[in-house]
């Protein structure tokens, strides 16, 4: 579903991403681990076609994102570290607006409220302005947008950082459900525990390179941490 082939990006001579080749199949949850500046966000920006690759290609559903930018975004949902919404609109209005722009202007109020319920937003919050929302609530609206859009691929950029454990847990549960439904997930994260919990595979990145890929079923949490630190040290 998500595919990077020899994907490389230089910014003014600095290599942000070097020769990344990976593939995320439907139902996969691929977690990119790495320090700041390892190239995780660059990878996601390349898939979103927010930046142009220096070489190589990123494909979504087999389509090159630079050539069919709008088409590839139909399959995609993106949830950043903090989902950004319009403060002066309510959660429901935000969801309505974004899903309408994603091509789902046919959604009824009942359907939209149902999406918000599925992601666990308190019912009374739907009609409150987003200005009053906590970060966890915003993330939930972000997932609701992805649900409404019926995205086949999800790009997540540190979606749980700064969430309290309960909210992070709920988030992981939602992710597991989406993965069961056959959504391909690419998630950048710092959180080894979360990666082990919700990921099917993890990739460790360092200085723009993918240095190690593991199946999460193969390793325990302690092993993952050890391997991660080994790669960070040398």
């Amino acid at each position, binding site marked *: 579903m998500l595919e990077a082939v020899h994907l490389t990006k230089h910014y003014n001579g600095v290599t942000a991403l070097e020769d990344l080749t990976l593939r995320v199949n439907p139902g996969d949850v691929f977690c990119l681990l790495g320090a700041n500046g390892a190239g995780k966000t660059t990878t996601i*920006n390349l898939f*979103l076609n*927010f*930046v142009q690759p220096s070489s190589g290609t990123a494909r979504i559903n087999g389509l090159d994102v630079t050539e069919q*930018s*709008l*088409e*590839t*975004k*139909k399959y*995609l*949902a*993106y949830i*950043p570290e*903090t*989902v*950004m*919404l*319009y403060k*002066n*609109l309510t959660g429901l*209005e935000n969801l309505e*607006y*974004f899903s*309408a*722009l*994603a*091509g789902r*202007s046919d959604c009824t109020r009942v359907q939209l409220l149902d999406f918000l319920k599925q992601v666990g937003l308190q019912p009374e919050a739907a009609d409150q302005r987003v200005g009053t929302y906590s970060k966890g609530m915003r993330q939930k609206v972000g997932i609701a*947008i992805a649900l409404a*859009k019926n995205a086949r691929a999800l*790009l997540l950029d540190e979606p749980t950082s700064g969430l309290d454990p309960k909210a992070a847990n709920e988030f992981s549960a939602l992710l597991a459900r989406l993965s069961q439904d056959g959504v391909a997930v690419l998630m950048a994260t710092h959180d080894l525990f979360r990666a082990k919990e919700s990921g099917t595979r993890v990739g460790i990145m360092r200085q723009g390179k993918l240095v190690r890929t593991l199946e999460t079923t193969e390793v325990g949490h302690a092993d993952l941490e050890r391997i991660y630190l080994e790669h960070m040290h040398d």
Partner: protein
Amino acid sequence: MFTIARKEVVETLRDGRFRALAILVLALSAASFAAGWRHYSDVQRQHLEAQEATRTQWLNQPAKNPHSAAHYGMYAFKPKSRLSLVDSGIDPYVGVAAWLEAHRQNEFRYRPAQDRTAIQRFGELTAAEAFLVVLPLFIVLASFTAFAGEREQGTLRQLLSLGVATRDLVAGKALGVAAALGLVIVPATIIGVAALAATTEFGGLRADVPRAAWLAVMYLIYFATIVAISLAVSAWARSPRTALVILLAFWFANSLIVTRAAADLAAWLHPTPSAIEFQTAMERELSNQEEMRVRLDRRREELMRRYNVSSMDAVPINFSGISLQEGEERANEVFDRHYGGLFERYESQNRAFQWAGLAAPMLPVRSLSMALAGTDFAHHREFVTAAEEYRRGIQRVMNDDIARNSKPGAAYTAGAALWAEVPEFRYELPGVSWAMRQAAPSVGLLLAWCVAACWLAARATRRLGVV
């Protein structure tokens, strides 16, 4: 696209600052329309009364020599165009009445601006001022965050990750700003129409409809230009603060600096003589007696030839009438040359001012606004010419009467019948097509600005950077 526009409007309406600003702008335009309406009604009423009084005085002159009557003279009052309540243009600076008398083409007198201090000149708020200066500020404030703000908030990433085409986004934003603007413009226009409708005591409105309609069209083109420029800057600027600073600088230059700078530039390129220089030069030419003597001799010969006689005593008409008229004719030539030259200079200044419109969209729209309101220099000149024609007509009627009916050496008086031969002075504002023809370069420049601004907006938003 409509989804985007609707969301923009909802968001804007929920912004308290917007509501306050909208009310303020609306109040300003309402106040300016009210002031314009009062001023127009007062002045128009006074003019009508004065015009009638001067006519009555003329008709009720006792029996006297026609040349005395010509010296007695009358006033010609410039009727105010109804749309001057929207844009008073140069009216306060050029005077409203001319004294029409024998031998002289007088300058227009009674300039309202003469009685004011320099500060007051600045302070006059016409509806045109509210629309052309204050509304663009409103547009800037309503649209500087369009892209820059969403970029800073991070919602632009969210939008573009959904697969929204930037073209739709730009169109939606423009439509949203337009709709928000409409919430101010529509009520303001209704107030304006009401102000115009409250002046029907001075005649039907029909004649002003085409002018008012064109005025509205030109203002809308101007607003579209400002919206496009604002969106372009907002798309281009890295942060909303940068966008705001750039747009405010543009607004300030466009609405406050450029107009004055262009006027100064035009005056520097085409300097006009001072009133004293102008008068002295004209007097010098008028006081040339030699030329007059030659011309009168020629007239005498012509007359003797026409009546086939060898002495002036045998000519059956009174030469003093001919001589007076010849004096008028000669003076008219001098006036035409001097005033014509002066007016040409003003026209040159106007052209320079118009072409300065390449520097800012305010200049062409300002020229057009005055032209359509009937308060620009072209309209003033048209009226001055008509008044002068009328003055010359009076002189001709008086002098012809002297030539035909009086006897040399004998006292001669004429009465009410002769006074009534002079028709009442009536002046009609030229039609809208005339006004548009005069302002054609401004129409072109304003359209050029609008197209250029839209192109700029399209270009700036073609690749919206999200980071």
